[in-house]
């Protein structure tokens, strides 16, 4: 019987090695570590809670069922995000879900559906007015991001929400470095224009 594993402090590479040895705890720790970032990225891409949940799930299933093919020269998270992003882009292509409301999924028709697919945007302030302003600004940013072209959206989310470097994004999206820089620059410009009235 293998000893119980405290996986929470292990780096990703060690967890992947343990998962490759068939350790269930390592799989679960990898999911725990990345479920929120992956789900956030996918949700912000497709803007539909149910679809995002399915895509995030599909991402993990795909990655974890192919864990033995993982090559340690790349970051595990880059591999994971690459698959998540590809699945989200494919889903957008299939469903043409590009422009939607922050108040719920594109397909939500009734009040109940809107409530079921919408999110409470979290706050970080103590003051109620600040809280409201932040919530409004956050919602406006979410809407503005949702209106970007899918590849601009991927670039801006990976750069500013997930904190990836330009090089990593280029590798992740299979795009030249210059293109990534241009996309991010244009996406920032479009977002600022869209948010001009809100700020």
């Amino acid at each position, binding site marked *: 019987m293998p000893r119980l594993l405290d996986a929470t402090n292990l780096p990703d590479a060690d967890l992947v090695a343990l998962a490759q040895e068939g350790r269930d705890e390592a799989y679960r720790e990898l*999911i725990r570590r990345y479920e929120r970032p992956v789900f956030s990225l996918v949700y912000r891409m497709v803007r539909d809670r149910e679809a995002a949940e399915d895509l*995030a799930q599909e991402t993990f299933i795909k990655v974890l069922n192919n864990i033995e093919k993982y090559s340690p020269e790349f970051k595990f998270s880059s591999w994971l995000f690459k698959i998540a992003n590809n699945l989200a882009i494919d889903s957008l292509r299939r469903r043409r879900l590009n422009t939607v409301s922050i108040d719920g999924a594109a397909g939500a028709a009734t009040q109940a559906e809107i409530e079921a697919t919408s999110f409470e945007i979290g706050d970080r302030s103590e003051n109620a007015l600040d809280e409201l302003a932040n919530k409004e600004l956050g919602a406006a940013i979410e809407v503005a991001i949702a209106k970007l072209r899918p590849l601009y959206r991927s670039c801006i989310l990976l750069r500013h929400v997930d904190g990836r470097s330009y090089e990593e994004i280029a590798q992740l999206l299979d795009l030249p470095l210059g293109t990534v820089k241009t996309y991010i620059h244009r996406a920032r410009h479009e977002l600022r224009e869209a948010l001009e009235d809100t700020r």
Partner: protein
Amino acid sequence: MTLTRHLLPDELDLLLDGETGFGVQQLTAHLRDCADCRDELAALRAFVWDIETLPELTPNRGFADRVMLEVHVFEPWHVAIRTSVAGWMPESPALRIAAGTAVTSAATLVTGAAVWGWAHRDATVFVGGLVTERAREGLFASLTATAQTLVGPLGSTVGSGLPLLAVAGATLLTGAGLGFLGLRAVAARARRNEA
């Protein structure tokens, strides 16, 4: 030389990303003298900060369990062996040392015997043949005795050799078949009781 115009969006982006390459020094120098460009860069930083501080979203409860239902956790054979060996290892250090010593001694003995056998191949083949012959004779004798006990006079009429082996085999198969049917009946009864 400092710039005599305001910074372009691309140049502000370079500063925002903290680039330090060729030409950036000139932009930084301009920034020191131009309040408008400083304000513009500050606004850009504030805007990026707003994006960077968007909250993380959480999937529904039980997400990991749903994923794990579809993930095939596979233990490679070498890991399975290692785990099994680790399972046999005693907990206490003293016992571990004793077990290690015993295994090492056994391995040394076997290796020594194998090396000796290889070095004296003729003798090994001769002794091996002798042992095999004795074993075969012994097996045959015990089979004959068993058959005579089981089938009595028929055993003595059939004698020895192939017919004897066939009788023994048939007896064995019948026994195994009856055993299997018995176990099946027990299992079926257990299932009925459970239901």
